[in-house]
């Protein structure tokens, strides 16, 4: 058990901090969002580029692909130091967290060299095209077809819930190439150009009011065979790489956490003018959220410890999204409650004063999506039960039948 920065880490922290001090963005992500999606994207890209040029983008990627070749610990230190500015990296999370590793594992070398650095620099935004109207949790049941035609594949079908498709340059796309074998066996993965005329993106308005995800239609989209990721029929295995990284990348739910609710209840009075933080019921909730937050943090550290000793980490990180998405929902609901009617007011305040309700309202409206995206709470529990605890698999009536006969 050992827990302090080594000298090398301490130096790294100082370096990160001093770079951030001199280069940090002028405005917060929340402020940038007020100006609308376009100006937010512009600010996000500018920030990402600045980090990239100084060697602070995709820290853990190899240098030749635009990363820094940093250790897991350095990546954590950077995350701690970058803190709230990380919210400006939202548009790149899917690309860098999921598409990047998938390309690294399966793309041809030429494509890796060409596409990974601009992904790291934020010049290109990538999206993940897996879910379909008929295939969400059961994504292996998808029906977007890719048919081989000489050196190319011709793709037809529809995806849904594609986050960021409206501003993405590229995407990784899971298709069915062989309907005559069981559903998991007939899938193939490609990367595609989202600007192709055969790709049509239609935004969907989310429950939160934002248009973060989309329907995406493909009509005779032609993709060169070199854009195939993995062998034909190997798509499920490739997708699992992405999903595994998704669960790692999604990690902690973005939004207010223990510190934010703690600060709020330290400031707010109850009806007898006592600070809320002294109320037993409030203390009980705070203590539980703190235990969850701290438990997740040190679970991550245990994973890193195993990796750094060259050991295979246990499955403990699989709990992260379930715990943090639910925590976000509870904290947000609680904060709105504590603020009373003003907890529902979304107005920006005048001058320098921030409206304390805003992050919690956003958390409240975002949390339901987080509990669904990247594997629902229920699917993740199935995964823990089956893969970690070795309990029997769900009954799968369609597992061995050819897809075309379902």
């Amino acid at each position, binding site marked *: 058990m050992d827990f302090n920065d080594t000298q090398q880490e301490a130096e790294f922290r100082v370096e990160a901090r001093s770079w951030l001090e001199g280069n940090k963005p002028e405005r917060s992500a929340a402020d940038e969002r007020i100006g609308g999606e376009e100006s937010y994207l512009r600010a996000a890209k500018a920030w990402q580029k600045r980090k990239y040029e100084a060697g602070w983008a995709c820290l853990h990627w190899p240098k030749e692909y635009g990363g820094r070749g940093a250790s897991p610990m350095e990546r954590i230190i950077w995350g701690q130091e970058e803190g709230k500015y990380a919210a400006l990296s939202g548009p790149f999370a899917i690309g860098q967290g999921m598409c990047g590793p998938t390309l690294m594992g399966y793309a041809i070398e030429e494509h890796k060299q060409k596409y990974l650095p601009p992904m790291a620099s934020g010049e290109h935004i990538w999206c993940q095209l897996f879910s379909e109207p008929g295939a969400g949790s059961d994504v292996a049941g998808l029906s977007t077809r890719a048919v081989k035609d000489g050196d190319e594949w011709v793709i037809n079908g529809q995806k849904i819930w594609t986050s960021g498709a409206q501003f993405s340059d590229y995407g990784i796309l899971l298709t069915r190439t062989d309907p005559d074998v069981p559903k998991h066996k007939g899938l193939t993965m490609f990367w595609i150009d989202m600007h192709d005329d055969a790709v049509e993106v239609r935004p969907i308005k989310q429950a939160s009011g934002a248009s973060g995800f989309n329907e995406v239609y493909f009509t005779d989209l032609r993709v060169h065979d070199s854009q195939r990721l993995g062998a034909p029929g190997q798509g499920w295995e490739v997708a699992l790489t992405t999903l595994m990284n998704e669960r790692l990348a999604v990690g902690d739910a973005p939004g207010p956490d223990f510190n934010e609710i703690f600060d709020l209840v330290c400031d707010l009075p109850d009806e007898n003018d006592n600070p809320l933080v002294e109320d037993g019921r409030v203390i009980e909730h705070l203590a539980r959220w703190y*235990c969850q937050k701290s438990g997740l943090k040190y679970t991550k550290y245990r994973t890193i410890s195993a990796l750094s000793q060259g050991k295979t980490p246990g499955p403990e990180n699989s709990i992260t999204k379930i715990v943090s998405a639910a925590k976000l929902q509870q904290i947000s609901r609680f904060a709105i409650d504590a603020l009373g009617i003003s907890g529902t007011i979304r107005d920006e305040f005048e001058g320098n004063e921030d409206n304390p309700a805003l992050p919690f309202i956003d958390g409240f409206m975002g949390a339901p999506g987080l509990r669904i995206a990247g594997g629902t709470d229920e699917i993740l529990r199935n995964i823990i039960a089956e893969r970690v605890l070795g309990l029997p698999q769900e009954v799968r009536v369609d597992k061995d039948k050819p897809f075309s006969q379902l």
Partner: protein
Amino acid sequence: MPRFCYYARAETTGNEHVNLDFSDEQKLLGDQVNKMLSDSDSVTAARRLVEGSETGYDTEIWRQMQELGLTGCAIETQYGGLGLGDLELCVISEAIGRHIAPTPFFFSICMAARAIQLFGAEEQKRTHLPGLASGERIATMAIAETPGAVSQKRIRTRFGGGVLNGRKIGVCDGMSADFALVMAQDEGGSVGLYLAELGDTQRSPQKSLDPSRPVACIEFSDTPAEPLGSAGWDDIQHIRDRAAVLCAFEQVGGAEACLEMARNYALERKAFGRQIASYQALKHRMADIYILNTLARSNAYYAAWALSTDAQVLPSAAATALLSATEAFDFAAAENIQIHGGMGFTWEFDCHLYYRRSRALGVILGGTGSWQRKLISALRAQNSTAVA
């Protein structure tokens, strides 16, 4: 998850440092204790106490713990111990929790010996530590007097003129202990710890929710005693924080044993023509136990680090570990019975032994509410940036 490893390992270069894990030697020690407790059928030994066919503690298990050097492992060599540290106590405690071993280890070694090591005068260390290290003598802590949380004001036991007067309840191992550290007020009204031999006190066993951790009521009337160094209220809190970490390890061990029991039974038992483990309601319940257990273990590891380095964050880390582990063990023990169905509610099955133990461990250092208040005040005392 091989893919995940591939990806994550690709990012591993340079000097890796954070190590939130026990050393191979410490893990080996844990394995050894687990094996010994499983070979000596510790759970059945706990049952004997619950059934009343044995009292006090299991002498055979205690003898083996002495032989393995566990009793003295964290006591300095000049006082007859092995000179190892807190981390060894953590792995031993986890094994004890897993096998609900009926031994006085927690109070005698993890608390009383630790208190003497930290706050005793040299003479007191020389007198008392060797006997505790060898396991020949047993000590305990005598704290509670009335229902509810322990407060400085409500401690009525008095020390004056070299003697103690007062009545303590719920003293763990109170019948078997040779001496106790007794919380009492001196003539000036300040609370401290006092060392008293128990031979001449009036002791009577109390019936307990968890008889595998037997408790007694002890009457002190003009019982000779001496102050433990100059240990005061804050020092007592420090001892309690340290013990909380070890208690959390016992709870983590117990919670994990419950998950294993539940899993094994669910794989065996059939209903409606299927293994009950194939029903999603039970799968998800067990996934939830796994989630709480994982959070508890991670919090306990961090607290172990804080304990072994005497870090400033020990009070909040210990409270977090204890709260997290209490929640995990309470849940795992209760749901373990549920997953066993009627069998789980029988005297014969071991489920209730863990259920009893889970609730008893949840209060031996004070209840959840008091630890929650303690955690939040500790965090308020730190500034909000240090909280992160």
